[in-house]
């Protein structure tokens, strides 16, 4: 584990999230804000696990018990921005990297050749492939934002923790003569965290002890998805419910479940 933690050392800022599942009502405001901010195209077809383009999904979790002992929870899943990302090492054209201050896994659309190795490698299904060209109904393209270029057919895309907001914050810091490498100065939030009406999504620098996310990540109720794979996700989840924490590791039924 100590070796794994060393991979963060070269990042002064390590943006991360702490999502409190006990506060998430599953309303979906984060999903809509993400679509609007990042120019994710509409589709008249209903959800299709393999073909729908989405950067953030809210999963409904169940404790699996029958009524009346049933319990339910909602789990928003952005890109985990892994500290040890399995997608980066398999990209043949260096379209996805983790080498920039902030520790966000990048995705360079014009460089992507659509081989989808990264999708196969990602254990979180965070990446999506554009099977079709994006189409907006007539006039609706006017709501495109200047924040993310429109991706054509044949390109893989994913959540970027609203990297453009980070760049804007850095630019603002430079303009004001302040240190753009100080996360207290460039303290931005992604669109999903900004709109969350129950403040379930807390965003900040995991290397900055003054940021709430750092405190939350160390909570005894904190866990990460598929932690044992060693991908070192920068998205933490919190729940006081043990069954929710257990599902975070998604153990196979025949495996011995570790206590959480």
């Amino acid at each position: 584990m100590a070796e794994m933690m060393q991979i963060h050392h070269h990042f002064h800022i390590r943006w991360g999230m702490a999502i409190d599942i006990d506060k998430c009502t599953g309303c979906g405001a984060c999903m809509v804000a993400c679509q609007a901010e990042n120019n994710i195209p509409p589709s008249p077809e209903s959800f299709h696990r393999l073909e729908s383009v989405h950067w953030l999904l809210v999963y409904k979790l169940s404790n699996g018990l029958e009524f009346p002992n049933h319990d339910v929870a909602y789990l928003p899943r952005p890109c985990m921005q892994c500290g040890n990302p399995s997608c980066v090492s398999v990209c043949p054209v260096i379209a996805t990297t983790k080498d920039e201050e902030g520790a966000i896994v990048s995705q360079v659309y014009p460089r992507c050749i659509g081989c989808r190795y990264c999708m196969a490698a990602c254990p979180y299904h965070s990446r999506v492939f554009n099977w079709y060209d994006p189409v907006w109904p007539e006039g609706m393209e006017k709501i495109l934002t200047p924040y993310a270029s429109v991706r054509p057919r044949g390109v893989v895309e994913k959540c970027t923790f609203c990297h453009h907001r980070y760049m804007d914050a850095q630019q603002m810091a430079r303009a004001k003569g302040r240190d753009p490498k100080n996360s207290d100065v460039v303290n931005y939030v992604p669109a999903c965290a900004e709109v969350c009406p129950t403040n379930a999504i807390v965003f900040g620098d995991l290397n900055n002890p003054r940021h709430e996310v750092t405190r939350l990540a160390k909570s005894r109720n904190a866990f990460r998805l598929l932690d044992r794979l060693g991908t070192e996700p920068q998205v933490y989840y919190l729940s006081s419910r043990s069954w929710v924490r257990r599902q975070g590791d998604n153990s196979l039924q025949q495996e011995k479940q570790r206590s959480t």
Partner: protein
Amino acid sequence: MALDRRAILKFIAGGAVGTALTPIPLKLTDDISIWTQNWPWIPNIPKGPESIRPSLVKMGATEYGIRVTSVEGNPITASGNPDHALSQGGIDPLAASCVQMLYSPSRIDSPLVRDNGAFRSVSWARAGELLGNKLSGVKGRADSVGCISGDSTGSVNEVLSAFVSAMGSDTYYFPPSDAVSQSRVWHGLMSGRGDVGYDLENADFILCLGADILESWGTLVRNQKIFARGGKEVVYAGPLQTHTAAVADRWIPVGPDALGHLGLALAYHLRATGREHTAGTSGVQELRRFLEAEYAPNAGSKASGVAQNVVRWLAEKLLLAERPVVVPGTVGGIGGSALPFFAGTALNILLGRINRKGGVRCIPRPPQILDRAHNLSDIRDRDLGRYLHGVAEGETEPPQVLLINEANPAYSLPGDLFSRARKRIPFTVSFTPFMDETAAASDLVLPVPFFLERLEDSFTPFGSGSANYSLASPVISPLRNARPAADFVLGLSRQLGLDLGTDSFRSLLKTKVRYLDADWDVLTGRGIAWTDRTTAYQSGLRVWSSSIRQMLNAARPAAERSPRLALYTEINSGTDRIAIPPFGLKTLLENELQGDTFFLRMNRHTARQHGLGQGDLVKLTTEAGTLQAKVNLDEGVMSDVVAIPTGFGRTAWDKFSRGKGGNGYELLSLEPEEGSGLSRLSAAGLRISKV
């Protein structure tokens, strides 16, 4: 120079180094990658200065301040307004889609008149002339004109209701909702003054008696912000694990028709402890006798379906909490029977929570500027279902012209009630930005600007803990040939020689702002709502009405054993007024909508009883109608309950919503409720069969 071996090796080595160092191959690869993605049909993103303006969301759910970001004048995104008391920076998924709805394919381009069964586009002048001629012939008759308004907080109601009054009629209604049922019970059965609000901020124990406060009830985003701050215990009682139940401290399963019984069973326990507050309240002895006879522990438990120890635990919670409050409602926020609202409000009275910190706050009547207008509070006391039932059955004289302002009764009223009533109404006019189901069935369709394109206001949305007034200027000029309903009706009234008491909608709003002693610039410039924490003094509240017995008898379940229907609302799939937005469609998962088939929810026990499994296609049949759905096994639904989401089954609108799923309202029928002045919604005779 001889071409010797050394020269060849030098050439090869030089070529290898050159190839490795030159940027040309990399550049060419990069260019190929870029230019094979740079097609003319891929839209370019805008570049230009950004601006942020406040607005006021009005999409049929709750209303609050938002901020709209624009690039070169074009709105691109919406977010919550941290300065607005009912947003506090939060936004719901429907409001977050509002900018996209500006460009919905279902927007109406110009006035449409029905001609030989099909719509024909006409000018505004022609539309005004046509409607003016219709109205001039019936002016002064009590049945001349009626109005249904889907906006229950705006000053547009002053103009429309003043117009209806000036025409000689008093037919003015809001669609059924929890707000209407609560208002009718408070004023009609309990002699309350002002309007009921909930000081949830300061409560320490919240019992949601059916009300899905974190998804579909009242001031949704404010409620979510209050929940986020923590420090209070929330218990949800209802037939399914709603979004509120998912994060509440406890879910108590109660049948959709038993919420009132649970409330009265709890009232019995308060009575039994002798700790209820009765000062200044009438009907206490009658209620005590009634509870003793009908809701003693065994009977109360049987009626509500909740175990005695759970009822007792909940009653103790209410008694031990310092600032408890009970929030009555229906799972889908669709209103209906007075019983749960009566029981919930009676509990608040008996707990001494009226006009107390963290309890029910009685908000003074909304201000009224136009003399002939109907007060919003009075309109909320009227039951549209009952009225249209009378029209459909021939018991009530139908209006000659029915104006429908941004309401969608053709979609959201039970069964075929609206279409039956519609057959007796000679001419219907729909004011709407979108081609919804009601517009599609109207004789004249008048496009109004979407709320982002017009001057808009709102006075105290249902559920607010204090009076508040919000006002917003347009963030963009109308994208269609649309006119605000208020301005059009003011023009029409001039044409008919009627004086409504104002020249324009703007001047009406200016007067209202002055009346409230508010600041126009603060309201519109910063999007900060005017607020007032004054409460309406209460005396002579009643906790008993002889009509309770009548309501209870009508509410008793039929002897036949059939599953009960619970309609629930999830705001990402729209409201009665707004169909599923394109953004919203992408938030629905594979066990909510698959192709054009949507899913109902039932637990395994219920499924086994009907021989059903996950994904089975079933037909639901009631006395009112039928629909098809797939089964999603969900243990978060109590046994013998079938849960169906609202918002699906659109027959108008656009390709993002039309034909997707079924309309749950079509399974309901409406029965006037004796004693309350409201209507019961019933899914009597519900049958499930595998297709």
